[in-house]
């Protein structure tokens, strides 16, 4: 018995030497208390917020490596930024090896949770939400890791972002799983990023469900190696409420998945239905750019083993050009999968290398539409092609993402 006591004491003292747990509850001075606690953490420490609602006038931030910042549940610990008067986001994380989990960030004036330049960030069982429903005045992003490595988003919920609920930008080695994105303009967006696995998520009632994008003139571009599997990209039916000027402002209501630019993207084993404009769209970056290092064309895209359901029944011709072009081309018979068919000029003449070709296999009775650019330029030819069987081919599976 005495031995046990001794051991217990030793364990407690060694724990207290190496790390500490700070526990805070709601108070009238949560802003200063929590911010000070976040600053005073040391590597190995844990800051725990009890159940309750915490109110902030300014953003809060964390800049200590290897710590845990946690609440007591996605519906139990609420960080409310509805009265925020300064700070461009709710919570900002700028350090490495951080885990944040089990709380909600509500009504931030800008982004809800931004993580910049981190190596190792685990976002687990968190919720970001704008409670007034989809509105142009909501913040841009729910989850916004950027310029980061080893990014995990697991079991999170993102609601009401005026750009993307879950947005990973200019990052590498990314896993987004078991998460729900609803009533955002874009549900989940992977942009200018390398090595991302997006799986077991539900993206529904957004304008567009899952977006894999690449944009020019940025420090990291040429997005590649993105796997999108076992997701439900379904019933995306919210009118586009993004402020103009943003790339997602072009996304028509009722888009399941869009792949724009990027290379080595594998989309498989997803349920994709209930998207009124198009279930899956593969497109070239649509604006002129002088960036010589930028490739605007999607290449090495593989689409296989997905289950497509009803789509294209309510095309959003008000937003962008995609829906109206598609409606005209298809003469109202909207496809499940659309590829704009645009290739680099050299490949129009010499042909596309086999390993860069679009492959589509085993997608049930999914319908397809593309444009043949050569026929498009010649008179008397109908450029529209709809035979999906021509794209059948061997799948070269991409390797899974492993986080460090």
């Amino acid at each position, binding site marked *: 018995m005495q031995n046990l006591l001794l051991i217990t004491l030793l364990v407690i003292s060694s724990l207290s030497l190496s790390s500490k747990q700070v526990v805070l509850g709601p108070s009238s001075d949560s*802003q*200063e*208390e929590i*911010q*000070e606690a*976040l*600053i*005073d953490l040391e590597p190995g420490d844990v800051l725990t917020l009890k159940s309750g609602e915490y109110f902030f*006038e*300014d*953003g809060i*931030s*964390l*800049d200590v490596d290897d710590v845990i910042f946690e609440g007591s549940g996605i519906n139990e610990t609420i960080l409310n930024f509805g009265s*925020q*008067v*300064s*700070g*461009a986001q709710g919570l*900002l994380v*700028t350090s490495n090896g951080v885990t944040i989990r089990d709380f909600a960030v509500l009504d*931030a*004036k*800008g*982004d809800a949770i931004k993580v*910049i*330049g981190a190596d190792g960030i685990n976002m687990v069982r968190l919720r970001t939400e704008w409670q007034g429903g989809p509105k*142009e*005045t*909501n*913040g*841009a*992003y729910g989850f*916004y890791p*950027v*310029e980061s490595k080893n990014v995990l988003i697991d079991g999170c919920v993102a609601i009401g*972002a*005026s*750009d993307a609920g879950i*947005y990973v*930008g*200019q990052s590498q080695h990314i896993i987004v799983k078991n998460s729900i994105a609803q009533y955002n303009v874009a549900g989940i967006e992977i942009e200018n990023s390398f090595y991302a696995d997006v799986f077991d998520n539900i993206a529904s009632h957004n304008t567009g469900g899952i977006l894999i994008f690449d*944009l020019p*003139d*940025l*420090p*990291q571009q040429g997005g590649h190696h993105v796997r999108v599997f076992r997701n439900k990209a379904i019933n995306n039916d919210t009118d586009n409420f*993004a*402020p*103009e*000027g*943003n*790339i997602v402002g072009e996304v028509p209501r009722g888009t399941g998945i869009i792949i724009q630019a990027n290379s080595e993207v594998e989309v498989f084993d997803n349920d994709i239905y209930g998207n009124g404009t198009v279930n899956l769209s593969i497109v070239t970056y649509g*604006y002129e750019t*002088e*960036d010589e290092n930028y490739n605007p064309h999607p290449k090495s895209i593989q689409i296989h083993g997905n289950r497509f359901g009803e789509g294209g029944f309510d095309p959003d011709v008000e937003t962008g050009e995609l829906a109206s072009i598609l409606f005209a081309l298809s003469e109202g018979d909207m496809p499940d999968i659309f590829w704009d068919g645009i290739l680099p000029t050299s490949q129009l003449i010499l042909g596309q290398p086999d390993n860069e070709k679009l492959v589509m296999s085993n997608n049930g009775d999914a319908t397809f539409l593309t444009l043949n650019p050569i026929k498009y330029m010649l008179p008397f030819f109908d450029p529209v092609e709809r035979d999906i069987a021509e794209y059948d081919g061997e799948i070269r599976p991409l390797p899974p993402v492993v986080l460090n």
Partner: protein
Amino acid sequence: MKKTLLVCLILSFIDFIYAVNDDLILEDKFPKKLSSFSFFQDNGAQSPTEGVLPYELISALFSDYSYKQRWVYIPKGEQASFRQDEVFDFPVGSALIKTFYYPMDERDLNLGQRLMETRLLLRKENGWEAVSYAWNETQDEAFIKKAGKTILNEWIDFNGDTRSVRYRVPNKNQCKECHANNDAMSPIGPKARNLNKVFQYSDESINQLTKWMKLDFISTVSEELNTPVDWNETNHLLDERARSYLDINCGHCHSSSGAANSTGLYLNLTETREKHIGIYKKPVATGRASGNLKYSIVPGKPEESILLQRMISTDPGIMMPESGRSLSHTEAIELIEKWILSL
């Protein structure tokens, strides 16, 4: 003889009191009170200790119309070294000290002032660290505020109008948001080019770089400094004034090595690519801050330029810079508006 000894003793005692506490600059923990550093001889932090030298920048960062007084401290016998287009490389043990205050009445500065905070950048063994001390009501001591502080203040401006501000003392992390360069903390202001002007010292009026050389703070600077203009001086070219303002107010984050490099918008003085300066540049992750506009800068159309609209806004989800400002900088807005019209 005895008398001389006594005077010597008293003098050395005074010297002992009014010497900067070098050890404290290097210590891991920050003291609770600003006075512990002995950067100043008086409690109101107005007269610097010997070795603490005041300086001014040619073009300064806007901080809600607060006034700023700056000092530099370099340990005796040490030197800072010149780096082209960068801040001086200060030796370990150096300190940059900046006090933010509001005059009671801008029309008559003799009517007194109210101190807000004194920010320190301390050059420790492992690099720079930032900390801020907020002044108390009685204005005789400043206390460390790691989590930041909000101070409500009023003052009378040049026009005789009463102005009010919700002044924010930044928290330790917010210091880094602006001062991080390639992930390391770094000063922003004291580049040779920003110091290249005449300053009225207590004993003489002389170019600051010359003074620093006289005092052996530095040994040399290049002749090609790319000296910016004071954006406030209307006799300079509009383009130079605008770029100078954007450089000091935005360029520390908006550069290819700054905290905002993921935006692709680079407003530092040495950027020359039109797209990256913002001309017909589309926003990347701007969200509602785009204000329904398509480009950062549309030449000739300030009302369609996101950059200007974000300078005008005071909504935390829209405004730029993200921190350190709660009021619009009317004079700078006029300048940037004219500049965009001229493009």
